[in-house]
């Protein structure tokens, strides 16, 4: 009997970025198949191809042994594919019941029968939770919205069910209920694809696991015959092909920034200390609260916290206050949060502290250009004149503009969120060297990165977050990809810091 779903040699690029190089996958009826891999390994992209949201550049999809082209989510549904999205995809303005049966409504003619819809929704939801099907989805908590999303997929009468990190927003008891249902569906003969970072979940509930790395298929293992360590090794197993700058030669100095008890909706009391002359790495999975931590410290997110900068207590209610104290956050999302893509480079750089280039209330263009040229030289920014907009630059040069912006305020502590995302290898080394230089000059550097080799290659010390809490701290000798993944997936946390 052919497998229920078979992908062979799928490739997909977004512009110059190769998201999937060569991915193969196989799903049998009546199994729960885990899909594992680091952030950016291509799991979600692959599943979006299966659901018809994305079209592959190359490769073949077979369902029940027959080659298929899936051009839209509608066609995927017709083929019996249900998808629980990682980011919640619901309509906030309409009722729970309508959201659950939206796909049916899309095909329906004639009139709506809301009473029947709500009754049916109630039956579906009864297996999961206690949500009134008549209320609007926008009024539900995130975890309840996630449950509605799951209920929605359950009603599709799917033969293939894709769960993209469905449990990241759920409590333990909700997770348990979900898996009870998933097991029941498996017995009915469905094939279930479960994307998860949580090794415990994979080993408790799944039958097989396929591992992706850097957009490529690595291996497929039977759960009873493998160990979490083997899976993790396969997720990581990459050679560091890239030379990192030398680590700090001197032991770190006095505390530069002490952060205590940062608490907000995504963080549960995180504390850390940044010392002079060290690069501090922050590791963790997507959604663990890494960016939230940096943003909270810099006043970009509402939180309660205690801060001491060079021993002095400071209060940072907003980002403007952070800048006044020489603290800068450089976003992971250059295009949306980082740069004014269509404004000249010089204006991008001067915008953090316009007073430096302003005389009597007027912006001095010449001073602005001079500042851009100076910082550009310091960062070895070769492409682009000061009057060009960053939108014309490559990712690496855009990131250098973002760094120039950061340097324009003579910072004391900088937070860099994914500083080399979408940056080519050459510019990456340069950025790493710049960060080390800054650190040697006494600037505190905090780096958030999902790329483990980078985190290890660059940091003098790493703290790892798991679900809004600190799950461990690693010094230079302890840093391995395995150790980080262990801490990040909450397998065991070493000396609970909270």
């Amino acid at each position, binding site marked *: 009997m052919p497998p229920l779903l078979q992908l062979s040699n799928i490739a997909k690029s977004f512009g110059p970025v190769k998201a999937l190089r060569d991915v193969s996958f196989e799903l049998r009826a009546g199994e729960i198949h885990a899909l594992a891999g680091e952030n950016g390994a291509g799991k979600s992209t692959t599943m979006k191809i299966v659901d018809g949201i994305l079209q592959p550049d190359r490769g073949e999809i077979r369902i029940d042994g027959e080659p298929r082209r899936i051009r839209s*989510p*509608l066609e995927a*549904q017709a083929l019996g594919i249900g*998808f629980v999205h990682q980011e919640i995809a619901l309509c*906030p303005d309409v009722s729970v019941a309508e959201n659950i049966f939206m796909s049916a409504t899309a095909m329906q*003619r004639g009139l*709506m029968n809301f009473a029947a819809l709500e009754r049916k929704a109630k039956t579906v939801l009864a297996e999961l939770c206690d949500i009134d099907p008549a209320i609007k989805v926008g009024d539900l908590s995130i975890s309840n919205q996630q449950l509605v999303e799951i209920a*929605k997929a359950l009603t599709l009468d799917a033969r293939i069910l894709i769960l993209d990190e469905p449990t990241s927003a759920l409590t333990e008891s909700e997770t348990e209920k979900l898996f009870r249902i998933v097991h029941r569906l498996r017995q009915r003969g469905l094939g279930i694809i479960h994307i998860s970072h949580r090794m415990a979940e994979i080993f408790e509930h799944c039958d097989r696991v396929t591992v992706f790395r850097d957009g490529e298929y690595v291996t497929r293992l039977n759960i009873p015959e493998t160990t979490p360590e083997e899976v993790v090794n396969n997720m990581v197993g990459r050679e560091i092909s890239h030379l990192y700058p030398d680590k700090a030669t001197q032991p770190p100095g006095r505390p530069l920034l002490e952060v205590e008890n940062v608490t907000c909706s995504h963080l549960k009391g995180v504390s850390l200390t940044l010392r002079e002359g060290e690069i501090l790495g922050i590791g963790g999975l997507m959604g663990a609260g890494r960016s939230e931590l940096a943003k909270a410290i810099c006043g970009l997110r509402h939180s309660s916290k205690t801060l001491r900068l060079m021993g002095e207590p400071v209060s940072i209610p907003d980002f403007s206050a952070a800048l006044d104290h020489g603290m800068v956050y450089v976003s992971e999302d250059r295009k949306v949060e980082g740069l004014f893509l269509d404004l000249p480079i010089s204006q991008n750089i001067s915008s953090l502290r316009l007073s430096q280039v302003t005389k009597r209330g007027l912006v001095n263009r010449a001073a602005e250009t001079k500042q851009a040229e100076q910082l550009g030289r310091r960062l070895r920014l070769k492409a682009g004149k000061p009057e060009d907009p960053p939108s014309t630059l490559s990712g690496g040069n855009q990131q250098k503009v973002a760094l120039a912006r950061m340097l324009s305020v003579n910072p004391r502590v900088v937070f860099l969120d994914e500083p080399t995302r979408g940056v080519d290898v050459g510019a990456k080394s340069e950025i790493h060297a710049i960060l080390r230089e800054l650190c040697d000059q006494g600037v505190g550097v905090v780096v958030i990165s999902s790329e483990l080799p980078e985190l290890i290659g660059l940091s003098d010390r790493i703290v790892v977050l798991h679900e809004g809490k600190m799950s461990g701290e690693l010094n230079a000798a302890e840093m391995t990809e395995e150790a980080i993944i262990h801490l990040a997936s909450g397998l065991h946390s070493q000396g609970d810091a909270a």
Partner: protein
Amino acid sequence: MSETSLSGGMTETRTPGVLRRLAGMREMGLLCIILCLCVVMSFASPYFLTWSNFRTIFLSFSVEGIVVIGMTVLLIVGGLDLSVGSVVCLAMVVAGKLFLMGVDPWLASAAGVGAAAAVGAAMGLFVVRIGLSHFIASLAAMVIVRGLCLLITKGTPLSLFSLPPEFKFVGQGSLGGLPVVVVIFVVLAVSFDFLLRRSARFRTIFYTGSNEKAAEYSGIRTKRVIFWVTVLCSTLTGLAGVIFMARFGSATPQFGVGMELNVIAAAVIGGASLKGGQGSIFGAVLGVALLSLVTSSLILLDVSVYMQDMIKGFILLAAVSFDHLMNKRGKRG
């Protein structure tokens, strides 16, 4: 009874459902405001509570109300149409010009509505295919279509006194004491309100406006939905245009300037959101009724004409602010 069910978990409510929903509907608040205004006005002016006054008020908003219906549907899908004033005029001018050239007035009217629909289709294509926002596409259409109207008429009003009486009846006649335009408006409003609430096809408009991606992932062809709603809005606007022509017996190239603001204000007062996903025809009708009622009340009270626009603006501000505050409270609770 209903209070306990609201506070004590939302799970097991049966009997208070209908009542609770009625009370929670935004339309009820508007209806109350309108009734209060009527009571106050009946004391303030002896003329207010007369049949002829109400007839005048109804007449004043019925044709524009047809445009409000289209605009509301478009706002629900997340769009916006600034061109309605020009498109009303286009339908009028095209129909009038063809009639003067000897075409049957009904056929000429159909052509006028067709021209309006074509403008909608063009805007829809620019939105769906090229990815322009409704704001930009309709802003351009507003200016282009107005120019077209001036071109067709050479800038002078078309006098259409020779329209046959059976055609004028649409705009000027009465059915059992009710003006025909009011009947047309009520029939359209009731139909579209029903369709938006109950028809499966029309529900997809809410889904698309509320979260286009979610709708797309549920198998809804969101681009088509947006396109056809854009066409629908322009078509209804064109229909209003030819009815205006029948009512006034003329077609002026300046007709409808500034209408879009009134129409959008009415829909928004009625609960439509500029972000899409929210709104109802019933609410929008109440919105346009409220604006009309206020205007006529101010006239009865002899308030300066210059004050009227200001007061309308304040009503818009108050209605929308009230909504936002209520929404925030709901989220927190």
